[in-house]
Each structure stands twice: as structure tokens, then as C-alpha cells.
């Protein structure tokens, strides 16, 4: 049978309409099936960075933040409000957290002094505050056990602080090109510790970058972290 031009209007047989309707009806459940269930969502959260910030080596380092050498960041929202958190290097270094001990609202924090503690694997690792100020608000939801945040600069913020010496603080912090070089140096230092089995470094087999310290040294990962966070007592 010689078929006709598809661009010519022709009387579509009823079965063709049926097939089209069947397609539309079946498409919705198919789409939902493909989008997947819990496993996929968790994996997506774990793997996909939400923002597309500047990447230095492995680590995201957004431009407009200022960084403390202990791997905390501060973002100035207003003259009297700053948001504080841990940077991607810290986030990836330590990996999935059980929780975080945050200072209560009203607590005073000081630049270079321990401000909060990351909890994982029955250990706590302290991090230094990047600013002087008073804690206004905390974000305990930054860390949900079993569901690691992958957004340390966005939804993973830790403290909202009213800074008391913002100008002076900012002058001592790192940003821009200097911050990039500092992160690259940290990455170098980290890479220097990596064993010759470079298999740890490649991303084609599902080896997590999240939690490098723990992959490196399951026994003493907290010591490694404290070295980088400058809270190992030597500082």
C-alpha cells in the first residue's frame, strides 16, 4: 500500500489517535519511573554541585566571599550582618558529618578563635571564626545525618553574625587571586599526602572526593583536618 505525504492533511485512522493517546497516557508514568526514587535523589544531592562557582583544583571557591586560612568563609550581607560557613575544601576534606555543634545565638565569636565543632565518626573537629561579632542565628539544618549537604556556600551556611570589627577583619582575610592561590596550595599539600595509588584521585569509579581525609587516614583523619583548620593546638 502506498502511504501518503505526512504533511498532507489526511484522515487519520482511529487507531492512530488511539496510539497517540496511549503514548500520552503512558508517558507520564514512564517519566516518573525514569526520574527514579530515593536512591537517585540521594546520589544527586551527594554528587551535583548546585551552584557553578569558580573551581580551583577540586574545590569551589566563589568570588565574592572572604576566607579565613582555617577554611571558614564570610559573606557580608549588610553592614551589620554577615553569614559564616565552612568552605568547600573543609567540606570535602571532612566528608559526611553526623552533626555540627554551633554556638547559641548571643554568643560572642572572635576572629581566629574556635567557634564551632564538626562532628563525625565520634570525633569533633573545631573550626576558627573568620570574624569578630555576636551570633544572631544558626543553621542547625546545615547538617542532616545521612544526607550530606553539598552546598557549603548556600544552604550549608552555619552562622549569621553581627560583626563588630568588620573592616579590620576583612583586611586580614583572603579573597580573589590570593584566596585562589591559597586554596591551590592547600590542595597541593593534600595531594602531597596522597599515596601513589592515584586511583584515589580519579573520578571514574565512584571513589568519593567527599571525605578525602577519611579516605586518606581513617584512624587519624581528624588530625589531618585540624592541621588544615589551624585548630591542632600548634596555632
Amino acid at each position, binding site marked *: *500500500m*502506498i*502511504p*501518503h*505525504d*505526512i504533511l498532507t492533511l489526511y484522515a487519520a*485512522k482511529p*487507531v*492512530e489517535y488511539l*496510539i*497517540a493517546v*496511549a*503514548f500520552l497516557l503512558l*508517558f507520564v508514568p*514512564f*517519566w516518573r*519511573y*525514569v*526520574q*527514579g*526514587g530515593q*536512591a*537517585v535523589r540521594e*546520589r*544527586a544531592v551527594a*554528587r*551535583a554541585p548546585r551552584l*557553578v562557582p569558580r*573551581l580551583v*583544583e*577540586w574545590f569551589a571557591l566563589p568570588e565574592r566571599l572572604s576566607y579565613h586560612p582555617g577554611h571558614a568563609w564570610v559573606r557580608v550581607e549588610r553592614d551589620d550582618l554577615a553569614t559564616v560557613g565552612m568552605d568547600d575544601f573543609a567540606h570535602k576534606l571532612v566528608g559526611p558529618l553526623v552533626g555540627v555543634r554551633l554556638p547559641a545565638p548571643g554568643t560572642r565569636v572572635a576572629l581566629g578563635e574556635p567557634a564551632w565543632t564538626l562532628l563525625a565518626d565520634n570525633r569533633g573537629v573545631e573550626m576558627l571564626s573568620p570574624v569578630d561579632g555576636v551570633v544572631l542565628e544558626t543553621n542547625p539544618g546545615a547538617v542532616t545525618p545521612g544526607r550530606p549537604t553539598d552546598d557549603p556556600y548556600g544552604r550549608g551556611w552555619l552562622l549569621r553574625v553581627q560583626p563588630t570589627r568588620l573592616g579590620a577583619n576583612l583586611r586580614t582575610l583572603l579573597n580573589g587571586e590570593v584566596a585562589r592561590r591559597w586554596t591551590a596550595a592547600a*590542595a597541593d599539600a593534600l595531594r602531597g599526602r596522597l599515596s601513589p595509588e*592515584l586511583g584515589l*584521585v*580519579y*573520578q*571514574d569509579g*565512584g571513589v568519593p*572526593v567527599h571525605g578525602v581525609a577519611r579516605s586518606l587516614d581513617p584512624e587519624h583523619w581528624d588530625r589531618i583536618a585540624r592541621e588544615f583548620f589551624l585548630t591542632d593546638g600548634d596555632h
Partner: protein
Amino acid sequence: MGDTLTRSTDVRPWLSQKLFMGLPPGAYVRSLVTPGNILAALILAVGVPILIYRFVYGLGAVTNLSQTTPWGLWIGFDMLAGIALAAGGYTIASAVYIFGLKEYRPIVRPAVLTGFLGYLFAVIALLADLGQPWRIPYPIVYSAGPTSVMFEVGWCVFLYTTVLFIEFTPALFEWLGLRTLRRYAVQLTLSATVFGVVLSTLHQSSLGALFLMTPTKLHPLWYSSFIPLYFFISSIAAGLSMVILETALAHRLFRDQLDPSRHVDIDALILGLAKAASVVLFTYIFVQLQGLADGGDWALLLTAYGGWYVFEVGGLAAVPCFLFAHAARTASAPLARIAAALTVLGIILNRLNVSVVAMNWNASERYVPSWMEIVVSVTIVTMGLLTYRWIVSRMPVLREHPDYADAH
């Protein structure tokens, strides 16, 4: 003059770096002796003389083409399947540059390179197949036959190969250190991508439209006014599947090319592509059903050719469709790769069916490719793979060029 002196001594190290990867020529040649290369050399050693023989003594001396079967393996496999499988270029490029799916950026360059080489070697196979290949520019420059779908295919493939080359030039210019040219090339990316999608839509569907002229020769289950749609939709699935396969392969074979400081979650990308491929194949199956309804040839499904049709569409399109869906759902990259392999086989089978197997299906004498045709096909594919490897080993395709890492 000082300048000339410097330039002449500059060339040797530049050549050595670019061509021999920094090794002295002797060492480079020695490094080439690997089992894979030996196999490739054997293939070329047999295939190239056959090609020469074909050009000296004519098609009849090498192929089993006949007066009833003017098109054979070289058209069915190298040209039709080759172009369908090279569709990864426009699919990934549009994903990144038009739909804004930035996470696929790491695989844009390999996909564009695969696309470009796919088209280039499909054209080379066409040169082997044409009776007077030196006249290949004729539809472009000498005599136009605009009533012909093949005229349109010729123009489209010509323009699109050019577009793919333009899309690849940023990598080329980075390799050659030509910053300004690279900047211009990058500015062309968006227009090149849009143009590329237009051209790809046209020629992928037109390759199918070629067969609209054969209602009396092509088996009714494959002949339909929807053939252009079939070819276009299946080309998207083919492109996605090829990208999945070659990404997985490249990351295994070209490990040394990968930049460890770039965090690329290949599995997540593969799963995203798998999701897309499942939807495309799902749609494809229903479009095939519409074609069956339009032709009214349901009864033919019960014949031998009907069984073959069900195997092709059911086994090699429906099955991968659900494998992809399941892989996406359960986040299983290995399953996605299996589905991709099945899809690629299905596309090749479909193109061969339309052009050779279901063509002249009721003729008394059927075409079977000669061993020489098969060798030439394998040779052309081998040459394509070798070219791919040569480029990927030298140019920033799988990795970023350190000088341009910031410039995105």
C-alpha cells in the same frame, strides 16, 4: 637575521612537542609498537591495497553490488549508520550551549570530535562508493538537482561537517597556542550550535527520506512516509548512546589524559544521558507504531520479515529503552552502558535493514557484501579510531588546556 634563525630552530622542538609528544622521533616510533597498533596496522595493510584496487579496477572488482542492488554495505553501514552514530555532536552541543546544561561541558569536546570524525569518515566511505568520487563537489559547485533529497543531503553534510570543524577549532587553537583565533572560534559556538541543530535535523531525516523513493522495493514494515521521522529520532538516541559508550571507553583508555584536578562525575553525566535516551527511545517506539497503523500492515508482523522487524524495534529499541529507564532510576551506570551498546547495535541494524536487508526483499537474487567490502568498512572505521586517538592524545579534548582553564 636573528629572527629567521630563531624561527628555524623553533620548528624542530615545536614539531617534536606537537607530533611526537615530546619524545625524540626514534623513541616515539618505538612507543607505537603496541598490540592494538599492530592489529590496526594489519587491518590497514590489507584494507588500503583493496581500496587502491577498487579505484583502479572499478566497483565491480571489489564489491558485490549489482544492477538490482546499487547500494550495499558502504552506504548502509559506513554512510547511514556512521552519520546516525555521529549525532552525539549536535545533541551534546545543544544540551550545553542551548539548553544550558553546564554539567555536560566536560563531554562536549569529545562528542563534537566524535561527530566531526564520524562525518569525515562517512564522507571518505562515500568517496569509496561513488562511481566518480572526484566529482563529489558537483552537487555543490557544478550542477544542482534540487528536486533530489540527495542534493539536500549533500549540501547539509557538507555544511555540517564544516560546522563541526568550527565547533572543534577552539580545542585545535588551544593546542596550537593561537589565542586570538581561539577567541573568535569560541564566539562562534552558539551560532554554530544552532546552525548545527538545524542542519542535523535536516540531513538525519533526509537520509531516511532518500528511501521514500523505493515504495516498490522496500519491505512495507520498513517503508513508511514516516521514515524521515524514524531516522531523525533514532539519530538522537544513537548520538546519546555513542556518547555514553565513548565517554566510558575514553575514560578507561585515555586515563593519562584526564586532569585529576577536574572533578568530573562521569557516572552522573552518563545517567543523565541515559534518562534522555530512554525518553527518546520511548517516543521512537510509538512513532513506529504510528507508522504501522498508517501503513495498515499489521498482518505482516506474523511473517519472517515481521519477526525480524520485531527483533529490531522490540529487541534493540524497546529493550534498551527500558534498560536505560531502569539504569536512570537505580543510578546504575554499568546498566546504562549495556543499554547504550544495544542501542548502537539496533541503529546499525536498522540502517542496514532499510538499505540492504529489507530492500529488494522479494527479489530472487539477494545482496551479500563481499569480504573486500567488509575489510574496507573495517579499515575506514580503524582509520577513524586512529585519528581520534591521535587528536585526543595531543589536543585538549578530554582535559582542559592549562593556559585556558580560566577562560570559560
